């Protein structure tokens, strides 16, 4: 265990997310059991009041995940000096088997919290709050995930011992290593570029079409959701396989984290902020479409879904544009 402030801060943030969700769970159960929108009883009024508290908590959990994901990556990067062979965040995350799973769990919680907030927003627009039960059932699912985040982080940190020989991003993505990540890294740039632009283009077009059509076709929304998820992964593959190379101007430096560092002018934020926004919005656009079947959401759900699709289209387009500019401005020549 390495005893240092950023780690304590991360555990504190994860613990707080868990504590909030855990404390909310009994109330969520109560809400699911006794919710009756038609009733004017005092219990119903109390439950309705509780929903405001839960919305606040979820917003905080969502914000916390963004903050702590950043802190997690940064801290991993800074701690790299403590591990032989580690040169950046990837090395620290690889120092034991819990590093990357912790990061993935955190991202998953972020996306789920964002989707919850989208559902919540939609639900709050309909006069009969039709999705309340669903929302709080979801909340019950999130609590274990928050526990998992805390568990993985804790395991990761407690098993960090300075001086463990780890692989750095250089060796992780080098051709010798036989992992999924290395396969992505060594994917021929041409193929990666093709995948990158095809997936992003498809996501942008589908989302635009859904947005223009005011979200009327249900399968359009589902297509936006699916294509957004696909585009998100294609974008990450693209960053590892070629965008980062152009940013570092180095043919073998594949790290998706170093681009966040001041040495590279924080360019990573320009990429990740629109990408994550677009992915979350696209995913939510897909999730919201089936709700159009409920009578009170028949017009509201398509509208909300179309709006989110618009955000997703803008985000993906912006991301693709920024990545393209970075590639074009680079001095590296990868494809003759």
């Amino acid at each position, binding site marked *: 265990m390495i005893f*240092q*402030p950023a780690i304590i801060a991360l555990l504190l943030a994860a613990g707080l997310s868990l504590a909030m969700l855990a404390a909310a769970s009994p109330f969520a159960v109560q809400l699911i059991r006794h919710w009756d929108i038609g009733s004017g009883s005092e219990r119903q009024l109390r439950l309705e009041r509780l929903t*405001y508290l839960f919305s*606040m908590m979820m917003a905080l959990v969502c914000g916390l995940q963004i*903050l702590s994901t950043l802190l997690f990556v940064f801290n991993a990067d800074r701690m790299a000096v403590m591990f032989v062979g580690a040169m950046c965040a990837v090395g620290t995350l690889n120092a034991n088997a819990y590093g990357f799973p912790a990061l993935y769990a955190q991202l998953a919680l972020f996306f789920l919290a964002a989707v919850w907030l989208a559902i919540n927003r939609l639900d709050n627009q309909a006069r009969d709050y039709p999705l309340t039960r669903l929302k709080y059932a979801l909340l019950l699912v999130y609590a274990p995930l928050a526990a998992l985040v805390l568990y993985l982080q804790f395991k990761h940190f407690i098993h960090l011992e300075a001086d463990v020989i780890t692989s750095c991003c250089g060796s992780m993505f080098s051709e010798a290593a036989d992992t999924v990540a290395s396969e992505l890294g060594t994917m021929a740039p041409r193929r990666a570029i093709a995948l990158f632009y095809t997936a992003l283009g498809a996501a942008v077009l589908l989302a635009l079409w859904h947005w223009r059509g005011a979200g009327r076709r249900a399968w359009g929304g589902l297509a936006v959701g699916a294509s957004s998820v696909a585009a998100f992964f294609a974008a990450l593959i693209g960053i590892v396989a070629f965008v980062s190379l152009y940013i570092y101007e180095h043919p073998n430096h594949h790290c998706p984290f170093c681009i966040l560092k001041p040495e590279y002018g924080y360019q990573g934020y320009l990429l990740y902020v629109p990408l994550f926004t677009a992915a979350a919005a696209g995913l939510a656009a897909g999730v919201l479409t089936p709700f159009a079947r409920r009578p009170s959401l028949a017009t509201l759900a398509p509208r909300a879904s179309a709006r989110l699709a618009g955000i997703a289209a803008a985000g993906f387009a912006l991301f693709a544009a920024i990545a393209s500019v970075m590639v074009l401005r680079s001095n590296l020549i990868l494809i003759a």
Partner: protein
Amino acid sequence: MNRWIEKQRHLIDFTASSLARRKGKSLGLLVVYTLLVFVLASVSLYTHALRNEATRVLAGTPEIVLQRLIAGRHDLVPPGYVEKIGRMRGVQKIEGRLWGYYYDSVLKANYTFMVPADRNIAEGEITVGPALERSRGLAAGNGISFRAYSGELHTFIVTGVLAHESELVSADLVLMSEADFRRFFAYPEGHYTDIALWVANPQEVRNVGRKLIDALPDSRPILREEVLRTYASVFDWREGMMLALLSAAILAFGIFAWEKAAGLSAEEKREIGILKAIGWETGDVIAMKFWEGFLVSLLAFLLGYVAAYVHVFHFEFALFAPVLQGWAVLYPSFALTPRIDGVQVATLFVFTVLPYTAATLVPIWRAATTDPDTVMRS
């Protein structure tokens, strides 16, 4: 969208004016909040600057230092070792080094005596570090005498003072010629304190280290990256300890914030009741209270951070220095290089704004869900 922005502007207006109307309470919270940020930011800025300083200093040192061990203790490197290592692949330069400690009974302080490799010092002359310059009132051209461990008195002429930049390391340094050094400490001819090796390729350092152990089994190579790692963890650990000690303060702050938020005055309760009655929704009141927390946190964070910055980089961490600093009796009075970094700010944020937000969440919700008809029932 415009309406939304306009609404938020109204809410900010209202909350700013209500903070101003309750100066006593707002100020009390702000002072405590700022103080917490100040203390935590001071500790974190200081340890961070120390770590940077150490990294900067170590950047100029050799990649490997080879020591000879006898019975697990550091001993002099006997003659012939430098030659025995000879040419090794990847090693740019090898050098035997001479240095040692000297206890000055006048100042009751330890100096580091050293023979520099990169400059020539004539016999009978020395160059001193800034701390010595200050404490013994030395200047170029002055003479100074040291009593050697053998009892003889040696007199040197000070010809120069080292630059102040990396004072953390050079403060107590005395540089002299090899002949003077060997004479002063009665150091056997041909022996060295340790051997420094410079390796160009960082990937090669560990291999060179391994080869050194093979070639000279009675020696111990110390890698610069290991020293760096040790420093980093020592500083992190100290900062972590400080934070652990301060966690009581953070907790107390959380309780304080909770109380401030929960203990609404009758006047505030009445106000929220009025707002609810005349058409403010629970969400509007929550948004209004959110902006209140945002304004207070922003202000406290900025004030506390700037004050800590000034404290650390202009007043040399005067308040807490004895806790976190050093080992030598001669306190180096070094000016740290100001530096702010993202991890640090984010960490500080988690330790201050997060407890505040979490502690005020439920009280805000309670206040905001006041029944709109309360004002008609009083």
